């Protein structure tokens, strides 16, 4: 397992009375959960998600099954919150958990909802040294507008301002079983990861976020600055960001090649 450096920040934003986002950064477990459901306790739902992942972080062995189980347990608990209500509170959940798979370190990346995780891959050994690193979206939004984009009805640009852009189609606590998406991606030294709630990109362009994340400042400073940028843009939603740097480990050879995982063509 490689050494991880990180920064994690959340803010209720300029308008909202309450922060319904919950975040967790206890290496190797990193999660952002955005509560959904208006007056119905979205902040409780997201807190339950983070609690379950906190439990996972305490386990002696953390594996992909554990990540899946944490989501399932959170789902059960959030559903228990609203009993027979048809549309009680729920929460998105997105994150990355470091695990070992057959002696190799991996990220188990998961997403349910419309929060996001991005990867800024390390430059490959044969890349131009001054080539800009690109922020690649890994997660696929579970949102109504994403489905419209996938069906070719609207473009990704139109999705950004679409009136239904807040409609989430999957969330923790939404169904009897939580259908999260999973990725398993080799953990590569030099990679930087960004996990954020949708508030971060509501008022900042992806280019602005990418430019800031590329800067060689520490993960902690980068996360703080991203939140500050969002607040300066008068973000109306809650906003959260976790930035993780995979630092090289002396136990592993430096000849680890960067990998490519099919990025989502969303933006």
């Amino acid at each position: 397992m490689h050494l991880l450096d990180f920064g994690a920040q959340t803010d209720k934003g300029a308008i909202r009375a309450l922060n319904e986002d919950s975040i967790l950064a206890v290496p190797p477990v990193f999660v952002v959960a955005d509560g959904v459901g208006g007056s119905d306790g979205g902040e409780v739902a997201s807190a339950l998600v983070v609690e379950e992942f906190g439990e996972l972080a305490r386990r002696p062995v953390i594996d992909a099954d554990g990540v899946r189980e944490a989501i399932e347990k959170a789902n059960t608990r959030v559903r228990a919150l609203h009993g027979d209500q048809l549309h009680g509170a729920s929460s998105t959940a997105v994150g990355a958990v470091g695990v070992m798979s057959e002696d190799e370190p991996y990220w188990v990346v998961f997403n349910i909802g419309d929060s996001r995780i991005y990867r800024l891959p390390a430059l490959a050994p044969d890349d131009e040294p001054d080539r800009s690193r690109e922020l690649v979206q890994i997660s696929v939004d579970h949102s109504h507008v994403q489905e419209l984009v996938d069906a070719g009805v609207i473009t990704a640009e139109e999705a950004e301002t679409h009136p239904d852009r807040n409609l989430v189609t999957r969330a923790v606590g939404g169904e009897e079983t939580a259908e999260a998406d999973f990725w398993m991606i080799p953990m590569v030294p030099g990679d930087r990861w960004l996990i954020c709630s949708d508030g971060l990109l509501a008022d900042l362009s992806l280019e602005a976020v990418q430019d800031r994340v590329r800067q060689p400042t520490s993960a902690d400073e980068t996360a703080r600055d991203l939140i500050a940028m969002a607040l300066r843009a008068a973000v109306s939603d809650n906003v959260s960001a976790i930035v993780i740097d995979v630092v090289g480990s002396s136990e592993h050879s430096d000849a680890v090649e960067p990998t490519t995982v099919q990025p989502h063509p969303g933006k």
Partner: protein
Amino acid sequence: MSEPQTEADQARAAHWTSQWRARYRRGDWLVLSGPTSLVVMQPAAPQWSDLISEVWEEVVSAASIGDLAARLAIFNLDRMPDFAALFWERGEMRSLVRGRVSLVDPATGRPIADGEGIRTWTEIGLGGLQRVEVRAGEQSDDEELELPLVIGAVGASRVVIDCSEEVQIHSPQGTLVGDPASLRLLQAPAPEPVPVPASEPVPATEPVPAPAPVPAPEPATAPQPAREPEPEPTIALPVPPAEPQPSPMETAETLHGQPPVPPAGSEDEVAKTIFATNLPGLPVAPQAQRPVLGVLHPSSGGRIEIDRPVVIGRSPAANRVSGDQLPRLLTVPSPSHDISRTHVQVAPINDRIVVTDLNSTNGTVLIAPDGRRIDLRPGVGVPVDAGSVIDLGDGVTIAVDRS
């Protein structure tokens, strides 16, 4: 059927062609039909002819509705918004329906299953129903020519499927299509499996011939209305669009080149969150017991159990899978990069060990227990037996052994 096989029975088995008879009305929707399987898909543009042909081969090779869904998932058809599949299995018809395809009882006109508003794939056992009508897209009430269909692909708007005993087609021209061993599983419940002669299957994919696991004989003689739980959830089925489109779709490049007609129906209240309807659909299998179907012994060392998909390559990754399909990832050395990062998958699917080349650059060779070398077609899963060896090139081989 406890008497010994009569000659007539044997003759029928030898030339068994179809478990049902179908009549269709011409239309734009694609209907791919096999002896016990039928798939309805959105209209397709001419450039998809080859792809449709490949899909059809999968449709006629599937051994169960679960297998069919898994094979179609390889083509990403599990993401198609409008879709239906019917399968004759263990004495009854099973169905998967989604979007603008509905199933109707032709005798009463009563809807059995309507994909409209169904966001997940719902598997519906049709119980003792012997006749079912599949309606796709817009229906007209005009009188239309109706044509028979057994095996093939047609453009249709409506298909009526009849599996009553008396209409089963037995043709001396019949050939067995697909894996002859798995066809044994498709017979109506009987105390003993009906012996099926090993005639040459029409070449679809080239499965490594192997004895299929024979299921325990069903005690009842009537088709079972209750569904048995699947041994493990092997199908990853994402949730399709959550609501009807509020405005007609633009003529964007959809996969099949034709703009789908927006479904009728009023707009729902715009709620902050919208969730898929929870229908009594695919049962959620308990995760606790994962049967280990075999063990992999890579030439590079190690021992990996096959109790879930195993993805192998020089730097393998899993790309957007569901929680029950989280793979084991096996890294193998390939200094010359002949082996792709994500090269091949070995997965337990419906009690078989299935090997699939994941569109690797240099391909995968399967060495059958008898020594035959088979080039795997990219993306097409091939069931294998213990004693097979997977050759990834660059000196890396992986033995598939019993657990």
